């Protein structure tokens, strides 16, 4: 006698074989074949099976999950971690022995936001334009670092100039470049970063790359070190989203050259960009400061005797200068302050 004959909906659901069938009703295994056949032969149980299905679906229905829940909780979690991180910093006895901070790039992202409030513009000459446009010219023999209000850094080569709004507007971040610059853009998908040169517009979300658009040269080039950018030819009016979507996409270690004469775009690749070489393994921290000073044209002031024996393991790629300083300071438990192109670090040596 078939035990299923008198089954009610709940009895069916207590049967693993039945459950595995309603979970995958279209499976072509033996079990599914059995139940298909059984249902046909026992029409009186049809109602109970239908009810079992309803109950099963009520129990297993996926709850509605907002797409923003996962990143939202993650952001909250990061702030909490920073908070407890700061709490432990107050108690030197509990300091972590190993510098594990290369894992903290994401934390630093939110720290950078806090610190940007005391952020600083390196302004050489400020035009009296009513639209609050900042115009920077680098007439020095060496590169100059420009720190933007959003935490991004731009390294402006000699004989180059940059123009941008003192405070970026709500929807995007735009700068105009003549000459050459290396960009390290802080990530913000809501506010794309666009660089205009005479002939090209380059749109980024968060990345580092350099653009060279010399006034006397007929070539404009964009080289991407990390991240992705989209490039279109033309000026501001053609730099609309639709155009970028069909523009030239450049990934890591890819570049593009625009020749004014042929008005054609030529792609190229390169292996290593000097600014990309910021991967430190057991590097003496003072050496790291030297490299940062040279690359960014900044002056890092710190009591060197306290840090003589300290070394770092860190990947400082794909982040603006401020974030790099943030990370180092988290690792060695230091405070910093930026004034002009002078960065002053204060602390009590690295953790033992």
């Amino acid at each position: 006698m078939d035990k299923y004959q008198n089954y009610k909906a709940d009895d069916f659901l207590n049967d693993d074989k039945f459950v595995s069938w309603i979970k995958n009703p279209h499976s072509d295994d033996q079990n599914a074949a059995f139940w298909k056949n059984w249902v046909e032969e026992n029409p009186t149980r049809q109602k109970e099976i239908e009810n079992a299905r309803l109950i099963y679906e009520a129990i297993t229905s996926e709850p509605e999950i907002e797409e923003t829940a996962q990143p939202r909780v993650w952001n909250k979690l990061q702030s909490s971690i920073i908070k407890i991180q700061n709490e432990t910093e107050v108690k030197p006895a509990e300091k972590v022995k190993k510098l594990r901070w290369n894992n903290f790039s994401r934390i630093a992202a939110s720290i950078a936001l806090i610190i940007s409030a005391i952020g600083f513009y390196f302004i050489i000459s400020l035009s009296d334009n009513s639209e609050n446009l900042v115009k920077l010219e680098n007439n020095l023999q060496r590169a100059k670092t420009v720190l933007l209000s959003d935490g991004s850094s731009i390294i402006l080569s000699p004989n180059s100039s940059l123009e941008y709004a003192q405070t970026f507007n709500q929807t995007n971040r735009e700068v105009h470049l003549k000459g050459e610059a290396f960009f390290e853009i802080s990530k913000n998908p809501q506010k794309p970063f666009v660089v205009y040169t005479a002939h090209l517009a380059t749109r980024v979300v968060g990345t580092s790359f350099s653009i060279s658009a010399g006034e006397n040269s007929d070539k404009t080039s964009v080289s991407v070190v990390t991240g992705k950018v989209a490039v279109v030819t033309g000026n501001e009016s053609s730099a609309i989203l639709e155009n970028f979507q069909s523009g030239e996409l450049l990934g890591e270690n890819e570049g593009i050259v625009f020749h004014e004469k042929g008005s054609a775009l030529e792609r190229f690749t390169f292996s290593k960009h000097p600014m990309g070489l910021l991967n430190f393994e057991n590097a003496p921290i003072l050496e790291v400061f030297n490299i940062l000073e040279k690359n960014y044209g900044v002056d890092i002031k710190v009591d060197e005797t306290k840090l003589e024996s300290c070394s770092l393991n860190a990947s400082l790629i794909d982040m603006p200068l401020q974030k790099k300083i943030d990370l180092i300071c988290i690792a060695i438990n230091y405070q910093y302050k930026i004034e002009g192109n002078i960065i002053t670090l204060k602390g009590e040596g690295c953790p033992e």
Partner: protein
Amino acid sequence: MNELEIWKGVQQGNYKAFEQLYNLYFKRLYSYGLKICGDAGQVEDAVHDMFLDIWKYHSNLSDTTSISFYLFRTLRRKIFKNQQAESKASVFEHEIKVNLTLEEKGHEQQLVDKETITEKIQKLKNNLVQLPSRQHEALILKFFNGFSYPEIADLLEVNEQSARNLVQRGLEKLRKLLFIILITGIIQLLNL
């Protein structure tokens, strides 16, 4: 990285591994939380608190072969602890009361309204939370999360037979609930 490698990384305080663990489990844990609690805010807090604890006390984490089991158990405790703090636990302990919503339906259009299957499921879902909490939870663990009876028993801190009984009784009550819901549908139609 496989799950065990991720877990090892987290134990060693590797932030990337921690992030991977979060991304790997968030959805499963969050939907489980929503199923047993229903208050998204509370679930978010519990998930947040649990992962923060994992990060804070990573060096105390023990080796485990079933990470998902560990996480579910921890999250469950967090949810109930938070609920007790807000003394909302009683929500689950109500007697079954079917929401007999005999609304006035004057319009002709509504007269021909037939309850669709999705509406029935919706009604059942609404009534699901009115099951005694442990029956409700056992059903979620069994059918939604696919845990075995020994695991359910462990999670609910009862023996295996009790876990089976909880599922059985829960299913029986749901069958009766469904019957009432179907009848109510008919009453509604007759009333008009």
